[in-house]
Every structure is written in structure tokens, then in C-alpha cells.
């Protein structure tokens, strides 16, 4: 399947064409970026269709077979992640046209936007540990620069804070790669899974697992490693906030954790209950702590930032439950939260663009003036809270179902009860910004912004109504790819050498 390297080659090439294009014709940049992200979306749809037929596609870079060379291992989970990334990237690129129009140096923004896309795509499809680190750092470095893009005092401060935390995580990841290489003499994920199986669960093994969990917890912003997120995500321009909260933390933090824990280390709920309880603990702590903190926020985007920390906890809860329904629910939640939180951050961008402030106490009466934004916010919010028939409901339902099947009835009650927390902090925005009567000097959101928001609303409704198809074709195969455990290794070596 020759299309697999295109997932990161296209945005990477686009990133470096943009500076040259910017010298020739500035107005073409946005059209170019939108076309590129749309082509990625089409490519991701095609990839998803192909994985229905082939559970694992191994692409050998430069025809070097797996343990020697770098391979791209494209399975159902990768296809799912790539699809979600391309949706959020596409919506963000449409939104950027008017939102970024008053910034200087737009080509730098779009270059970084394409680099961050390339990095996330690469992390999702690679089958090599060090390659994963390189793509992760490409995405991370671009995100540090994008958070500081406005070069105001707060943005620089947020960016530095984010950089310090993120790099501690990244370098811990690098250190654990060094330790893993010392033990296994391989970097290929499949080969490493086989070798680690022979090493067994020694204290050294658990040390490395702990270090990796620490590194990815910083990247995914679990409480108590979350302190950078509520600063960094609001500081970025709105399309970037949407990208960072919607999908970035999930690719860099959660996808990597899930892939390594299930497919490489071969841990499972049945054999390693303590580890999975730690995951549940991280999840519950994030949901409760960040949810309560979000209630007291007065800044539109900062509240959404805390909400992201809280919602990411649900995903970890699903993985911690560890049976089919829990894992499928967690994966479904990645989709639901990417669409929902991506949409909410886009509405915040629309509000900031119209009024110039994010302070909830100063905003009022936008519900009538900006009806598309208001209704987008309501749909996104209802999906996050978990009202049927929107996509968020089915995701949460699967997690609750998983908890009940494993006998964690108290987790099921907690997950449902804590939705009230989500409802409470989202109502705070709804009341202050959209419902409260007041004189607002705001005009309707520009056409392209509305298109981007409506696109996500339509997807939220569509994926909610067609949840059975989503589970059958996207989420179910992805969950099975994870629960396959170290069978992953056999599948990679079995599919190698074909290159189609």
C-alpha cells in the first residue's frame, strides 16, 4: 500500500512549500493548506476503508525488513487516529482564514500547523519506538512555538511553562528508550514486544513502564501533571487550541500509552491489575480535580482547558477498565472529545474574534447576535455531557457498560454522576455568554468560521446517529487491535515483506 508514507510526507512537504509560496502569493497559502488537509482527510477515509480488509499493513521504508529498518505499522487503531486527526485539522484550517487574518507572519503559522499535523500523523502510524519519539518531538516543538505565536507576555509565559513540562516528559521518554534499547537491542515495536516477553516482568521492566507512564502523563496532562495545559491551550490561537485540546494530547499522551502498554509490553487487566488500577486512579483524579477547578474559572478558554483535563480522565478510565467495552469506549471517547472540544474551542475563537475578550463576566447577550456560534456551543456541550443521540453519549455509555461488566459498579456510578460536573461548568459559559441579556457589540461570525463549526456539528450528530456503524467499522476494530496484545508482533512480522 504505497499511500501510507503520504500521511506524513504530504504535510511535511506542504510545511516547506508554504514559506516559498508566501513569497510569491500570500493569498494562495490558505487555499493550499485547506486543500492539503482535505486531501489528508480523503486519504484517511481511504485508509480506514482499506483496514476493513487488511487488519495490518506494514510499510517498509526503503525496503528494509522489520527488525532492521523503520516500518510503518498501519492497523485499525492507526487508521482511526489518522481519521480523527484529519477531521480536526481540516476544520481548524477552514476556521483559520478569518481568525488568523489580523496576525502578522501568517505563513509561519501555517508552516507550524502543517508540521504539527505531520508529527501527529507520524506518531499514529509508526511501528518504531525511536521514530515515534522523533515525530512526537516534531509535533511538540511546533506546538510550543504555536502557543507563543501571539508573543504577548501571557502567551510567552504559558509557552515556557509548557516547554519545561513537555520537555521533561520528552526527555524521560528518550531516557526510557535508551534503557529499553540496552535491554532488548531493538527499536522495532514488534520485535521489542517479542524480546520483552522473554525478559519477563522484572523490576527493571516496571521501572521503564513507570518512566514511560510519567512521560506520557505529562504529555496527556493527567492530574497531577496537568498544570501546563490550562495555561498553554488558552494562550494559543483558537484553531490551535482546538487542535491541541481536541487531538494533540490524545495522540501524544494517550495513543502512545495505549499502544505501548497493550501491544508492546503486553499488559492486560487479568494479569496486571495493579497497573490498570493506577490508570483508573489517574483517570478519576483528573475527572474530579480538574472538573471542580473548572467550576471556578472566569476565562472562557481556560475553563475549556480544565474541561479537557477532566475529559481526558474519562479516556484513561476506559483504558484502565481494560475489557473490550472499556477500551472501545475509551477509543470512542477520543473521537467524541476531539469533535466536541474541538468545536467548543472554535466557538471560543469565534467569540474572541467578535468581542476581543474571553472574560466570562464581561461577555453577555451573544446568543441572539451569534446564533450559529451559540448553537454550535450547545451541540458540542451536549455531546460532552453525554446527551443522546449525540456522539458523546455512546462513548460514555460504552465506558459505563465496560465498568459494569468488570464489576466496577462504583466507577459506573461515578462516571455518570460526574457528568453533572461537566454540565455545571458548561452551563456557566452558556449562562454568561449566550443566555444572559446584555448589550453586545458583536456581529455574526464570518462565513468560513461558521462553515468550520457547522462541519463539526454535523459530524457530532452524524456519528451519534450512526453509532452502530462507528462501532462496527471504526471503534470496534481499533479496540480489537489493542486487545490483541502482543499478537501485534506476529501480525507485523506476518504482514511484512508484502509492501503491496
Amino acid at each position, binding site marked *: 500500500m504505497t499511500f501510507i508514507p503520504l500521511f506524513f510526507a504530504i504535510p511535511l512537504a506542504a510545511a516547506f512549500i508554504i514559506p516559498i509560496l508566501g513569497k510569491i502569493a500570500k493569498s494562495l497559502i490558505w487555499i493550499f493548506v485547506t486543500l492539503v488537509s482535505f486531501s489528508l482527510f480523503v486519504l484517511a477515509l481511504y485508509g480506514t476503508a482499506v483496514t476493513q480488509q487488511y487488519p495490518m499493513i506494514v510499510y517498509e521504508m526503503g525496503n528494509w525488513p522489520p527488525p532492521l529498518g523503520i516500518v510503518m505499522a498501519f492497523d485499525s487503531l492507526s487508521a482511526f487516529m489518522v481519521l480523527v486527526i484529519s477531521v480536526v485539522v481540516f476544520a481548524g484550517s477552514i476556521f483559520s482564514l478569518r481568525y488568523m487574518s489580523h496576525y502578522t507572519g501568517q505563513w509561519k503559522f501555517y508552516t507550524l500547523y502543517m508540521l504539527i499535523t505531520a508529527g501527529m500523523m507520524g506518531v499514529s502510524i509508526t511501528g518504531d519506538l525511536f521514530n515515534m519519539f522523533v515525530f512526537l*518531538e516534531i509535533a511538540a516543538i511546533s506546538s*510550543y*512555538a504555536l502557543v*507563543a505565536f501571539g508573543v504577548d507576555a501571557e502567551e510567552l509565559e504559558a509557552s*515556557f511553562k509548557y*516547554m519545561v513540562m513537555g520537555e521533561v516528559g520528552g526527555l524521560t521518554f*528518550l*531516557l526510557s528508550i*535508551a534503557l529499553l*534499547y540496552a535491554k532488548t537491542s531493538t527499536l522495532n515495536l514488534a520485535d521489542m514486544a517479542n524480546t520483552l516477553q522473554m525478559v519477563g516482568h522484572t523490576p527493571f521492566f516496571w521501572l521503564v513502564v513507570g518512566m514511560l507512564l510519567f512521560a506520557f502523563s505529562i504529555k496527556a496532562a493527567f492530574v497531577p501533571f496537568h498544570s501546563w495545559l490550562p495555561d498553554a491551550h488558552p494562550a494559543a490561537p483558537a484553531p490551535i487550541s482546538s487542535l491541541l485540546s481536541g487531538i494533540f494530547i490524545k495522540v501524544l499522551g494517550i495513543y502512545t500509552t495505549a499502544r505501548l502498554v497493550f501491544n508492546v509490553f503486553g499488559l492486560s487487566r487479568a494479569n496486571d491489575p495493579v497497573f490498570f488500577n493506577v490508570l483508573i486512579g489517574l483517570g478519576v483524579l483528573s475527572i474530579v480535580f480538574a472538573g471542580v477547578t473548572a467550576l471556578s474559572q472566569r476565562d472562557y478558554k481556560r475553563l475549556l482547558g480544565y474541561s479537557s483535563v477532566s475529559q481526558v480522565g474519562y479516556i484513561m478510565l476506559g483504558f484502565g477498565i481494560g475489557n473490550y467495552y472499556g477500551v472501545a469506549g475509551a477509543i470512542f471517547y477520543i473521537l467524541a472529545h476531539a469533535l466536541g472540544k474541538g468545536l467548543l474551542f472554535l466557538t471560543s475563537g469565534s467569540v474572541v474574534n467578535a468581542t476581543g475578550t474571553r472574560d466570562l463576566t464581561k461577555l453577555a447577550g451573544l446568543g441572539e447576535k451569534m446564533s450559529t456560534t451559540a448553537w454550535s456551543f450547545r451541540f458540542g456541550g451536549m455531546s460532552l455531557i453525554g446527551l443522546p443521540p449525540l456522539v458523546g453519549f455512546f462513548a460514555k455509555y460504552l465506558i459505563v457498560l465496560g465498568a459494569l461488566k468488570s464489576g466496577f459498579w462504583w466507577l459506573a456510578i461515578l462516571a455518570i454522576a460526574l457528568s453533572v460536573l461537566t454540565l455545571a461548568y458548561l452551563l456557566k459559559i452558556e449562562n454568561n455568554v449566550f443566555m444572559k441579556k446584555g448589550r453586545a457589540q458583536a456581529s455574526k461570525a464570518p462565513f468560513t468560521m461558521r462553515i468550520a463549526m457547522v462541519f463539526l456539528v454535523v459530524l457530532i450528530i452524524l456519528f451519534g446517529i450512526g453509532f452502530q456503524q462507528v462501532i462496527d467499522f471504526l471503534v470496534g476494530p481499533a479496540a480489537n487491535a489493542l486487545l490483541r496484545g502482543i499478537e501485534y508482533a506476529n501480525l507485523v512480522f506476518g504482514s511484512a515483506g508484502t509492501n503491496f
Partner: protein
Amino acid sequence: MIIFLSCIILFLIGLYAIVTKRNLIKIVIGFALIEYAVNLLFALVGFRFGMLAPIITRVDAPHRFVDPIPQALVLTAIVIALGTTALMLTVALRIYDRYKTFDIGEIRKLKG
């Protein structure tokens, strides 16, 4: 074993600098220390006593080389570290421009 442990100690010294130092530039230096520690560990992981540097000088000569992969990885990691360090210094200088100080105690516009 001791050389591996010394790398970890260097890593921890860097972490100590990042956590406790209040000057932005000193924090960046802490990162440099961590990067050296990890790169040194990589190079040591691939090292074998009595073996040659992995450079082919004659095609037919028998080769007994140290593991070349960690060296390639170190090179990549150095490039990434270069990027982050440059970005960090740029942001630190910009922060100095806005706040007129490098002290993180006084750089607190964000809270909550």
C-alpha cells in the same frame, strides 16, 4: 554499571536544576544537562570494549565494531535538543523583553 548510574545521576542533577532554579537561563542549562546525560547513556549502551568505531575503511577488512545505532540515535537526539534549546532561549529572551526579568518568581501573569 557505575558509568550507567553516573548518567542517571547527571540526569537527576539536571532535573534538580529545572525544579529548583528560579532563573530562566539556568532552567535551560538544566535541560542541557539532561540532554547530555541521555546522549551519554545512549553512547555507553552501544559501547563494547576493544572494538572499533563503526567506519568502513577497507571493504574486505574484518569488522569488529561497536553498535552504531545508538550513535545515530544520539545524532538525531542532538538535533532535536538543538531545536528545543534554541526555541527555549528565544522565548526566554522574549520574556525578558516583556517582564524585564529572568526570575520566574516575578513572571506570574497567569494564575488560577
